[in-house]
């Protein structure tokens, strides 16, 4: 019936004014979305996918401007529309759902009132029925006990619930177009599934057009009709989502697809270009356990965050610790790292009990340098005032005994080479490096003292898939050549399967299943594990 696309973007170019002149974030892109269609825009950081959506909504920040092109929305030319009319469209005709839902809501306003604000603004409700409509909207996004939750503040709700509220806010005025910018990044897989299904259901039911912006090809393919791949501000490929997976044409799409961990993929295959080197010679390992944890408990108030778990890691083994947020996996790793005192249980490291050493005293314990950690966010975990060299040298100076300055520099260079960090980058500060480079610094720092056990806490969660592919391979090679053991904490089952020999699944402080990676992922026995695996987005086949 309506052959005219609802949103039609032609030759859109967005420039940002920077100190070094104008930078093109989006370069002459075309896109169109029909009513009832869901378009996926996929790309890595810096591809211009979010900027495209901000340009459509005309909410670019002050430095950005639409330099060229036309944006036609149900017949209106948005690029020239006065701001006052644009404001009427936003929220009423076109809405947006953002990443990081908790931050996307006003922290000091009741969620019900925030939905009312939008309803009242667009004259979709009056003072008398705003409350009822707001509650109805909360009910619509399946928030239990909506009357009660009307009075809740964002900090009182989980991330998934906050995202439902953001969706309610976006859909309250029945807009025709919904743009979702990484709506489920940072949410657990089961929550992601629920949020995505809710969003798709509501848009389908109202015959809305939707744009899903994501870095996750699998997610886009699972929920979108058409997928558009962007790289460095340009559209490199646009095709029905089934075709993108089965027959990608552009090399970048192929590379992206290759780098995305999926069932059946092998670590080495993730990286296409340049061809990865063959695995390094393995360091011989004496058999035995490096870590043995028994009956570990951590109590907070009346709750057990970790409720009596047993686990062990053999020398040269990598063990994945998987679970959703709040399952106790991070608390467990913090206790093993001796940053947190366990309430009960024993932690034996290389046959020696370290669980009884107070966390405060462990910094100077002789075992301390044999356990190291790589953190989730490569940016936040580096001191912004330390150069890469100083960050890497820091543990050596603290725990490696006295060392001469030139020897220290030589060691830092050696480590940098080991983790594939160009030596000339050693003098840079974190803000001068890319995410992948910072991740390498974090790894170099962790292996600087030749530890026996490295705890990896979601080390690639903040990285683009292509960078993640490289870093995962690096971690694997380092493990083999240095003979280390890994405890890999993650929520991403595919990544865990690639890197780990054994997998432990946690839920609510308890271990629900453990076994070899194949066993747990191919033939899970626990219902919860099956649920987790099913929640990972599957591209259409």
């Amino acid at each position, binding site marked *: 019936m309506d052959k005219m696309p609802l949103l039609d973007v032609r030759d859109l170019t967005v420039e940002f004014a920077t100190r070094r002149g104008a930078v093109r974030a989006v370069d002459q892109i075309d896109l169109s979305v029909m009513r009832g269609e869901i378009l996926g825009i996929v790309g890595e950081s810096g591809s211009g996918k979010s900027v495209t959506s901000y340009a459509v909504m005309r*909410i670019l920040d002050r430095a950005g401007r639409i330099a060229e092109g036309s944006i036609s929305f149900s017949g209106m030319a948005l690029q020239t529309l006065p701001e006052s009319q644009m404001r009427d469209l*936003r*929220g*009423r005709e076109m809405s*947006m759902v953002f990443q990081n839902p908790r931050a*996307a809501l006003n922290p000091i*306003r009741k969620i019900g009132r925030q939905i009312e*604000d939008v309803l009242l*603004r667009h004259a979709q409700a009056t003072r008398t029925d705003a409350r009822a409509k707001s509650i109805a909207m909360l009910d619509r996004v399946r928030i239990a006990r909506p009357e009660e939750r009307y009075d809740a503040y964002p900090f009182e709700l989980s991330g998934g619930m906050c995202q439902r509220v953001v969706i309610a806010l976006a859909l309250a005025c029945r807009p025709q177009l919904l743009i979702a910018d990484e709506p489920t990044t940072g949410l657990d897989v089961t929550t992601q599934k629920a949020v995505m299904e809710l969003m798709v259901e509501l848009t389908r039911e109202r015959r809305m057009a939707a744009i899903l912006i994501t870095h996750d090809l699998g997610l886009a393919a699972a929920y979108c009709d058409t997928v558009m791949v962007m790289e460095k501000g340009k559209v490199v490929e646009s095709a029905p989502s089934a075709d993108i997976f089965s027959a990608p044409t552009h090399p970048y799409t192929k590379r992206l697809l290759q780098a995305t961990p999926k069932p059946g993929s092998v670590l080495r295959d993730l990286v296409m270009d340049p061809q990865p080197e063959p695995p390094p010679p393995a360091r011989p390992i004496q058999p035995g356990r490096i870590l043995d944890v028994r009956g570990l408990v951590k109590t907070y108030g009346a709750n057990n965050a970790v409720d009596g778990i047993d686990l062990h890691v053999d020398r040269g083994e990598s063990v994945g610790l998987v679970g959703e947020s709040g399952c106790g996996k991070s608390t467990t790793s913090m206790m093993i790292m001796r940053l947190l005192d366990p309430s009960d249980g024993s932690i034996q490291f290389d046959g020696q009990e370290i669980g009884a050493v107070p966390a405060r005293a462990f910094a100077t314990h002789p075992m301390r340098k044999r356990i190291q950690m790589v953190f989730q966010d490569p940016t936040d975990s580096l001191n912004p005032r330390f150069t890469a060299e100083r960050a890497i040298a820091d543990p050596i100076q603290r725990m490696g005994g006295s060392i001469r300055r030139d020897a220290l520099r030589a060691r830092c260079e050696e480590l940098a080479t080991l983790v594939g960090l160009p030596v000339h980058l050693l003098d840079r500060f974190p803000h001068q490096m890319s995410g992948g480079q910072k991740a390498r610094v974090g790894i170099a720092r962790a292996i600087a003292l030749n530890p026996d056990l490295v705890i990896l806490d979601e080390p690639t969660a903040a990285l683009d898939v292509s960078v993640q592919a490289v870093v995962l391979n690096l971690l694997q090679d380092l493990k083999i050549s240095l003979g280390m053991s890994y405890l890999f904490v993650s929520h991403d089952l595919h990544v865990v399967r690639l890197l780990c020999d054994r997998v432990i699944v946690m839920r609510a402080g308890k271990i629900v299943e453990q076994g070899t990676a194949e066993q747990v992922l191919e033939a899970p026995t626990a219902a919860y594990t099956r649920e987790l695996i099913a929640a990972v987005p599957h591209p259409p086949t």
Partner: protein
Amino acid sequence: MRVARQIGQRLVTALPSVAGVIVVTFLLTRILPGDTAAYFAGPAATPAAIEEIRARLGLDQTLPVQFLRYVGDLARGDFGASLTTGQPVLADITARLPASAELVLVALVLAVAIAVPLGIIAALKERSLIDHACRVVATAGVSLPVFFTGLLLVYVFYYILGWAPSPLGRLDVFASAPPTASGFFLIDSLLAGDVETFRATLAQLVLPAATLAIFALAPIARMTRGAMLSVLGSDFVRTARAAGLSPNTVVMGYAFRNAVLPVITTLGMVFSFLLGASVLVEKVFAWPGIGSYAVEALIASDYAPVQGFVLVMAVLYLLLNLCIDILYGLIDPRVRIDA
């Protein structure tokens, strides 16, 4: 109910601070050079007369004994007597505190009324002319010492332009003070329905209050600007914009209500600066406030008023911080839970 209990708990936790202040002020006034007995006896007194006065003041006792007596007196509400004015310190302070409080509060209100809008505008128009102007004005205000600003204002508005009345106290020599209800002349004159006195009070108050306000502009304006900038860049403001909310709702309803939290914290600090700065302003404008009273007592080695002054200031400051905490809790639901 819960709020009342929280206030009670806060007051209890403030008690050690008050005790500390009592000890420190007591010791400090004894350590300071100057012999009270000699000063009080006058230059022509014989050593015997000085000793007699010393004994009468209890200064011949050991420090612990003096301290116990001091604490015992405090418990009975007896702050001692001023040797220079001859009045009980409590009476002096209750007579003079409202003058200072009125001055500082009016100055604070004036500063907030100017600095907060200035900070908001500067944040909304970042790096514009208004932003730079705001910075220059604020920096200049805080760079000039208050006695200098005060004298400058007196010179311009009283001496040259003749707009302001003579800078001699809270009221003209010929006007009479309104009947005391709160001790704040502005409020008392209104309560008495005496518009003439109200105007006279206001005329006297404008210059000293402006002097203090100019000094207080910078921290408030800069803090407002900084807080607004970070809030305006936050995700929820973007959400509000993407939902089409009007600029007014976004800026005042969403952004400012969040940005006001650090500003309130700053206000507490600014208030204490102003209490300190008011000592000089009171001198310049012959303001019969508590600051000038304390300075005179200090110069005369008159212990009791100094101790009383420091104690009252400390208690005021504690109460002020309590108010700020309560206000914070009213605005930010997250603090309510944690408290």
